[in-house]
């Protein structure tokens, strides 16, 4: 980023004389303003990225550190009017695991045990041994903290349930499955289109085809979403039905397929740019060896433009991982820990948008969970970007 800023490039031109000193004052001011604009433009993307990460972290850190108070109600006992506390098993100040007994009751109709609905520290018990309490009344407060274990080991995402669960894997599985289905479509089709456009098609045909292909990426995703739900999904249901597989109307397969169509232009257009940037001598060198067009494309041009093609794939992956509308509409929004594309499932982005549409209090753990999920989404994208960077470094073109 910073090497875009003129400040760093002028340090190299100070040999001899500084060009900026040669003009009159007005010219110097003008140069200064332009330099300033360039600098701001250069670092703005860095600033924005840092800003986003700061916002995400500012809610994710409290998500894991600020405890949430859980209230527990007295149990119901069939036939009884009131219950009497007969024993306090976990007094105030002790830590209990979820499901551990906290208070024991007795009643004419029988006895009962109140168990913790979440792990944490007992904050308050509204009564002592011998107190008579009504059924279904607020009795115990537990100070519950979401742990990394809850986040990474649990396999259910249900932040707004009475017994909230924050298992991110049930969302990651949805994101990965839809992304994989999309890449399964977009990478082969997009790469073949790129090879065809750069090596086979007439230049004037390409001039028309490429912009129209790029239009695919400009279709509003909500349109794609309904296309997936109303057309692709029934067709896929019918197709799979012929193999005896039944599939619900909401499924990751249709969402992924349509998402794949949407990202084809990212793969095709950028890969084609990369292939056409291969120097003409290399292309001619291959033909001069007696190679055919297919051989030239696959054995010389693709390896020669691998770094650009990798960039195209990474951009497509990032686009698929973050895509929201298609999956929210067509894949269903029920978190589901599965990699089976015929299932309905929520992705990270779909869960975020779903949670945002409800009216969650801003101080709640459920609200902060959105940001934790958002941070995960960003980390996944970052992971692919780093992987792409390493691949590009490995195969950097040296011509």
């Amino acid at each position, binding site marked *: 980023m910073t090497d875009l800023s003129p400040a760093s490039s002028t340090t190299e031109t100070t040999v001899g004389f500084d060009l900026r000193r040669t003009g009159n004052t007005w010219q110097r001011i003008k140069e200064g303003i332009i330099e300033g604009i360039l600098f701001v433009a250069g670092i703005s993307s860095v600033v924005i990225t840092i800003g986003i990460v700061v916002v995400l972290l500012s809610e994710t850190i409290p998500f894991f550190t600020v405890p949430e108070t859980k209230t527990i109600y007295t149990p119901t006992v069939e036939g009884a009017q009131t219950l009497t506390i007969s024993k306090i098993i976990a007094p105030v100040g002790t830590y209990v695991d979820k499901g551990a007994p906290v208070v024991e009751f007795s009643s004419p109709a029988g006895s009962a045990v109140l168990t913790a609905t979440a792990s944490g520290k007992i904050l308050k018990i509204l009564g002592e041994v011998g107190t008579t309490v009504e059924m279904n009344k607020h009795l115990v407060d537990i100070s519950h903290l979401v742990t990394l274990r809850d986040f990474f080991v649990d396999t259910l995402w249900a932040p707004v349930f009475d017994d909230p669960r924050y298992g991110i894997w049930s969302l990651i599985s949805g994101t990965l499955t839809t992304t994989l289905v999309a890449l399964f479509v977009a990478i082969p089709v997009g790469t073949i289109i790129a090879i065809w456009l750069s090596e086979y098609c007439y230049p004037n045909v390409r001039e028309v085809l490429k912009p129209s292909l790029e239009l695919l990426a400009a279709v509003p995703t909500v349109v794609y979403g309904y296309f997936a739900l109303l057309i692709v999904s029934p067709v896929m249901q019918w197709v799979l039905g012929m193999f005896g597989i039944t599939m619900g109307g909401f499924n990751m397969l249709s969402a992924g397929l349509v998402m794949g169509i949407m990202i084809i232009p990212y793969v095709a257009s950028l890969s084609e740019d990369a292939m056409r940037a291969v120097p003409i001598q290399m292309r001619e*060198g291959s033909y001069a060896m007696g190679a055919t067009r297919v051989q030239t494309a696959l*054995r010389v041009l693709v390896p020669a433009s691998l770094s650009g093609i990798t960039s195209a794939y990474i951009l497509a992956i990032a686009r698929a991982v973050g895509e929201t509308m298609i999956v929210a509409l067509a894949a269903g929004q029920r978190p589901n820990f599965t990699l089976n594309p015929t299932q309905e499932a929520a992705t990270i982005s779909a869960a975020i948008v779903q949670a945002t549409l409800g009216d969650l209090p801003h101080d709640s753990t459920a609200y902060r969970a959105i940001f934790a999920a958002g941070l995960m989404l960003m980390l996944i994208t970052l992971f692919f970007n780093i992987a792409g960077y390493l691949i590009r470094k490995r195969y950097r073109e040296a011509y």
Partner: protein
Amino acid sequence: MGMITDSSTVSSGSAPQLAHPPTPVPRISDPLKAQVESFNFFYANGFQALHGINMPIADNQVTALIGPSGCGKSTLLRSFNRMHDLYSKNRYEGRIILLPENINLIGPELDPIEIRMRVSMVFQKPNPFPKSIYENVAFGLRVRGETNKRYIDERVEKALRGAALWDEVKDNLDKSGFALSGGQQQRLCIARALATDPEILLFDEPTAALDPISTAKIEDLVVELKKTVTIIIVTHNMQQAARIADYTAFMYLGQLVEFDQTNQIFTNPSNPMTEQYLTGRFG
């Protein structure tokens, strides 16, 4: 023995103009590998880059093409392996006969790929592929469908030895072709062209991008290679042509002005234009 009997008058001093006079067919006593006959070439935009070229190519000899920039040297050279077919609407007229089979290299009935398998080419700028040294040399065999590892090993070694590169790279065959110096890259490209045992090897200013030492190595190599392959080389360097070529063709404005044995051209050119060019008065 070659002679050209063109005697168009030339205003001395300024760059001379040719008005497409008919060029007689030069005759040589050496056995021929190819024969260019009444050859015209038109680029896709309709521009005629070559006019009625008649020229013999001696078997197992080096033929140099010289002349000022834009005179059509590369155009002529690239006709021998049908490189112009890569771009649509380019048009050949006339014949380039490959001997002894007596086939017309530019005949539309011939598959350019077949021809490129027999006529290899080395470019001005070294253009190794983004592959290992070994795979660069093996490329031509692989595109011909060769899969026998031992055979390919053998051919790669032979080609690298032929290009005087073997000793420098034999321990690094898996390294990228880009890791070599410019001169080594050019010899790698020569090895690549040799690996398929071509009958004719085309060089388009192969030393233009190289330092003097690398240039000298390539020149030695060209002289060595003519024992096994017929060579046509485009060069801007008169000394280079004088050092390595057996025959030299002087071209101007898309025409062949003079073709003769190299020493004849350089010591006693029969066309005043040739003399003017060689003495640096234009070009």
